[in-house]
């Protein structure tokens, strides 16, 4: 498990990506008689359907049928864990974009045309849209949670200074480039083959089973790759796969549902926006002694994954800082908006956003260097090393990373230059910030921390590799093929990467929580060890040896002999040795009390830090990122090229969340930003050319994770908080040192201008 991988190869599909030959769900050769589904959804956020007239829909060209709630044999719900996510409503409208029916027609275009012809008679009522409204009306999807540590009163009593205020972080649309899509093909015996762009094939299978009222073993889900997920296809894909399956069963024809971009943005959940109300007590040197916090998020209409997301926000409110006395009240607000869902970081970014803003506000109040205040508050090794949820931190490297980055980025010198620049410039003002990241790895829902694999060796020595993880661009397949090639001592090219398939590895967890490589990699190693122990027994017996056996360079070494792997396998086959095995892994050590949130929710932490320098225009609020410097810990990397891609991409996605990406709701609950013309994710122009990323050179995972590497999917996203804090610094500088407390995220030009005095 602790071997070093030297081959830094490119993404396994890179050649296919650049030649257009990589197959996504919409590119699969269409079966004969394929029909297309389009969803008809509500255009108001709250009301009651009095009458629906489908006459014009049914008579529209190319229409074959309409699917509604009545066509569902099993449950009318695609909610994961908790129920509440109806497939179709027939009476109550609870949010804008709620599905009411699906048209099945000969082409996607004809289906959409028909869907637009529906006449719905509605009685509209007043929705709850904002977090504030929901708090006022005590409208929650789940019970509030409370966490405390230490003695908050005592903490405030001992503090020299106090600060209180409100903070807000905005929502975010996933904007995966490949929109939601599913295709269901009927098989014999009422079985269904489902292709879905999903991060979670097993739950897709289970949900379709429940919706069709069939055994799970009659549903077969295959995913080769998806065109981006970021959490947006962890549960949000279920609706579409359920609908194609209902229709395929009813009509005995294959059915595809490719969701139009606007419909996708309207019908699927986003990152939770959060409201924070804090009171913090601290010493004259900036050391935090007490934090009292109310946090509330917009969950939308149903629980979906909101419980775990808000828990993770609580778990990351400390980021890298020791907060001795703390009291948190967390509210999970129910609103008449589409149910918000998983998004890279899963509540972690929002928690960290809160504490980093508080520290910046402390720094502005005390007029002390913010990086020093951050350092003072860092968790320490021997003391101050236990989190507010009772987990002891044993792998802390934040101070080392932070100090290295301050030096490497020339932070101090640049800060002085910025002061100088600001003195000379009346309109343009610069700012800079360094922020740390400490992110916990594991699903906080303990039972999800399991993975499976299936490995075959064919008689020519070639390997077929299967596991529960989904390739969504993060390079999972590349890393896991490297793991397999390393274990067998074979060239990477000998490992066949295949689609993720519920008939090969059952009951898998979603590719989420950054843990996919950890969990599935370990399961693969386990499967390979099973095969190898059989092979080793065979070698001892057949070659009459008891020497140590090594698998390297496509050979197997024992005594002073070597035989090619291929020869070993063909001989083993003739001697009836099993050449296939499944493997299983569950993460040890983790446990959590779901009520108090105390325990050890994470196997380990990843660390990183970023410096961002920005410039703003005082007259318009326009802004620009000038330079980014990052050091990030990925443990002992399996593939640095791929890890670096996650760090860079994560940062820029986080930058979008905090700057240009604004999810905008009207007060009547209608979403106004549902296309790339109104919802602006970063373009190349937002990415600064001065962007220096370094992988932490002393990275090593203290836990026994594959290659001692660390998870990398989510953590880098939060490095981008430095951009927001830098903008805050610039605003403070523009305000002649007065604070910039009221800057909210996203820091659009408008929000920046608002925060200027």
């Amino acid at each position, binding site marked *: 498990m602790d071997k070093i991988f030297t081959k830094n190869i490119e*993404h396994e599909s890179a050649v296919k990506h650049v030649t257009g030959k990589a197959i996504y769900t919409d590119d699969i050769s269409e079966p004969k008689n394929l029909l297309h589904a389009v969803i008809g959804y509500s255009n108001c956020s709250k009301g009651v359907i009095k009458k629906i007239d489908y006459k014009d829909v049914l008579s529209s060209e190319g229409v074959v049928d309409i699917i509604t709630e009545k066509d569902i044999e099993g449950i009318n719900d695609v909610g994961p864990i908790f129920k509440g996510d109806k497939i179709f409503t027939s009476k109550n409208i609870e949010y804008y974009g709620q599905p009411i029916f699906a048209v099945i027609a000969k082409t996607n275009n004809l289906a959409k045309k028909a869907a637009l012809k529906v006449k719905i008679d509605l009685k509209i009522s007043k929705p709850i849209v904002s977090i504030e409204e929901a708090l006022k009306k005590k409208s929650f999807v789940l019970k509030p949670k409370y966490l405390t540590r230490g003695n908050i009163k005592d903490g405030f009593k001992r503090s020299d200074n106090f600060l209180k205020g409100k903070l807000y972080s905005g929502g975010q649309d996933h904007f995966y480039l*490949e929109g939601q899509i599913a295709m269901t093909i009927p098989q014999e015996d009422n079985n269904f083959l489902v292709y879905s762009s999903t991060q979670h094939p097993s739950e897709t299978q289970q949900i379709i089973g429940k919706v069709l009222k069939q055994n799970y073993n009659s549903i077969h889900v295959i995913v080769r790759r998806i065109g981006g997920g970021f959490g947006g296809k962890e549960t949000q894909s279920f609706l579409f796969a359920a609908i194609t399956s209902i229709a395929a069963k009813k009509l005995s024809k294959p059915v595809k549902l490719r969701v139009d971009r606007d419909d996708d943005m309207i019908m699927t959940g986003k990152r939770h926006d959060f409201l924070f109300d804090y009171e913090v007590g601290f010493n004259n040197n900036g050391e935090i002694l007490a934090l009292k916090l109310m946090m509330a998020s917009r969950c939308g209409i149903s629980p979906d994954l909101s419980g775990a997301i808000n828990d993770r926000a609580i778990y990351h409110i400390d980021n890298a800082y020791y907060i001795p006395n703390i009291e948190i009240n967390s509210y999970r607000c129910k609103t008449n908006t589409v149910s918000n869902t998983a998004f890279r970081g899963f509540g972690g970014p929002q928690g960290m956003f809160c504490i980093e803003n508080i520290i910046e506000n402390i720094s502005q109040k005390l007029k002390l260097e913010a990086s020093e205040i951050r350092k003072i508050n860092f968790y320490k090794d021997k003391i101050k090393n236990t989190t507010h949820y009772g987990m002891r931190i044993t792998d802390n490297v934040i101070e080392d990373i932070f100090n290295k980055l301050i030096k490497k980025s020339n932070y101090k010198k640049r800060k002085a230059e910025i002061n100088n620049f600001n003195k000379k*410039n009346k309109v343009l003002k610069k700012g800079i910030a360094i922020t740390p990241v400490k992110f916990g790895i594991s699903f906080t829902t303990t039972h999800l921390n399991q993975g499976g694999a299936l490995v075959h060796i064919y008689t020519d020595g070639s390997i077929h590799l299967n596991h529960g993880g989904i390739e969504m661009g993060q390079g999972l397949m590349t890393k896991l093929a490297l793991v397999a090639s390393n274990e067998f001592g074979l060239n990477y090219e000998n490992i066949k990467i295949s689609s993720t398939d519920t008939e090969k590895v059952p009951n898998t967890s979603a590719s989420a929580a950054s843990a996919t490589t950890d969990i599935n990699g370990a399961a693969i190693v386990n499967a390979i060890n099973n095969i190898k122990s059989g092979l080793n027994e065979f070698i001892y017996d057949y070659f009459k040896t008891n020497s140590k056996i090594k698998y390297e360079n496509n050979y197997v070494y024992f005594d002073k002999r070597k035989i090619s792997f291929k020869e070993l396998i063909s001989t083993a086959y003739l001697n009836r040795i099993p050449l296939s095995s499944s493997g299983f892994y569950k993460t040890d050590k983790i446990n959590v009390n779901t009520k108090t949130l105390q325990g050890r929710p994470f196997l380990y932490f990843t660390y990183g830090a970023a410096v961002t320098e920005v410039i703003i225009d005082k007259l318009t609020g326009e802004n620009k990122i000038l330079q980014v410097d990052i050091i990030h810990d990925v443990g002992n990397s399996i593939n640095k090229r791929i890890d670096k891609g996650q760090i860079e991409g994560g940062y*820029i996605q986080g930058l979008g969340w905090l700057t240009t990406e604004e999810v905008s709701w009207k007060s009547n609950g209608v979403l106004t930003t549902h296309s790339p013309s109104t919802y602006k994710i970063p373009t*190349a122009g937002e990415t600064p*050319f001065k962007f220096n990323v370094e992988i932490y050179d002393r990275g090593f995972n203290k836990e026994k994770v594959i290659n001692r590497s660390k998870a990398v999917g989510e953590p880098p996203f939060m490095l981008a908080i430095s951009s927001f804090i830098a903008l805050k610094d610039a605003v403070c500088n523009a305000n002649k040192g007065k604070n910039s407390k009221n800057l909210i995220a996203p820091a659009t030009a408008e929000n920046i201008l608002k925060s200027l005095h």
Partner: protein
Amino acid sequence: MSRAHIDFLLNEEKISIKDLDTNTTVLNYLRHNHELTGTKEGCASGDCGACTAVVGELKENKISYRSINTCITFLYSLHGKQLITVEHIQKNKLHPVQQSMIDSDGSQCGFCTPGIIMSMYNMYENKIKPTEENIDKFLSGNLCRCTGYLPIKNAIKNMYSYKSDKFSKSKVIRLLKSIKRTDTVIKKNGSKFFIHYNLNSLIKDYQKISNGHLLVGGTDLALEVTKKRKDLKNIFYLGSNKDLNYIKNKNNNLHIGSATPINDILPILENIYPTFAKMFARYGSEQIRNTASLGGNIGSASPIGDSLPVLIALNSKIIIQGKVKKTLLLDNYFLSYRKTKLKPNEIIKEIIIPIYKKNILKCYKISKRIDDDISSVFMAINARIEKNIIKEIKIVCGGLAETPKIAEKAQKYLLNKIFNEENINEAKKIIKKEFDPIDDMRASKNYRTKISQNLLERFLNENNKIKSTLY
């Protein structure tokens, strides 16, 4: 006698079409009729670039290449052109842009990659220098959600260091030459698609048909099909019309054919009005600038069309051609929200932009995102300042009213005043009352108002050599 089919090259194969729906987009054609699924649909509105392909056109015996969004390009507009898709650029070995992309780790999920590859191919074939500015400009129409663009930028920087397979373009040139560029009408299911090569025949046909749709870049029109799912009955494609595609500089006026692509106008503007050109570099994306036109911007008359305030500030005129030809000052063209003096059966033929040699032109575009975004506020100022006296001034705003609008009171106040802080402060007070903008997802009413004031301050700052712009 018009021809009733179109001919074009799909990569290197000559194809004739007449039987497909007149509203068919190039993207759907590629994916459904040829199973060329490398070209992806990301948004179907020309905003994300996943569907990017390159179009080659014969110009003086050479092929000129441009990137386009195939999702908003109508198939029949390809007549006489070559369409190059991602599947085709690899010859014996990968094309340099492909190899460079792989070596720089420019793809993660890979869904945006074919489109980005085609934008890179467009740069490569046009031998665009990979400066930071050019890279941002040529990538402005391609969204990537995974990589954060850094490895893609590196791939572009390095792509010229790879050798490409040499192959002859003579076959393509010969095939393109064999296609006759004559007026064409496609008739299918009661709908028509017209391609004209001169103004007279266009006007003749356009007069006969009521509710004809004029098409150049299609950024508005194609969305009627891809988003609102309408059937457009009669489309008149102007992009190939020689009488609408030209730029002439005579008697201190630029005469621009209404269908001339923005990217053809840009290099000329760079010399005459650098600030105008700089604004245009942020107009839509590279793919949009390759097809969009001034005529389209004026014809659709959006209150947030970025070229309109500038053209008005410069006292531009338009030539309208219907039964008769008339010339109109653009100031007098707009009536109300998307309503203009253009009558049915009339078309905009030409835009005349006066060249002021002694004036300052400012083009201030404020938007949420810098590239490929619609402005929340746009302000164009055309002024002549002599000895610090404002001798001439025209201030025109976009995004503040239902049409592009002149800040009449503010400019009247400033005329013949000293160009100083005191007077600008007074003008700021005046302009605040002059507009009553709306709240929407792009900006609030308050922000728009504040910006209109502050941009006047920026104007003064810039005159006083105080650094006041980031972009």
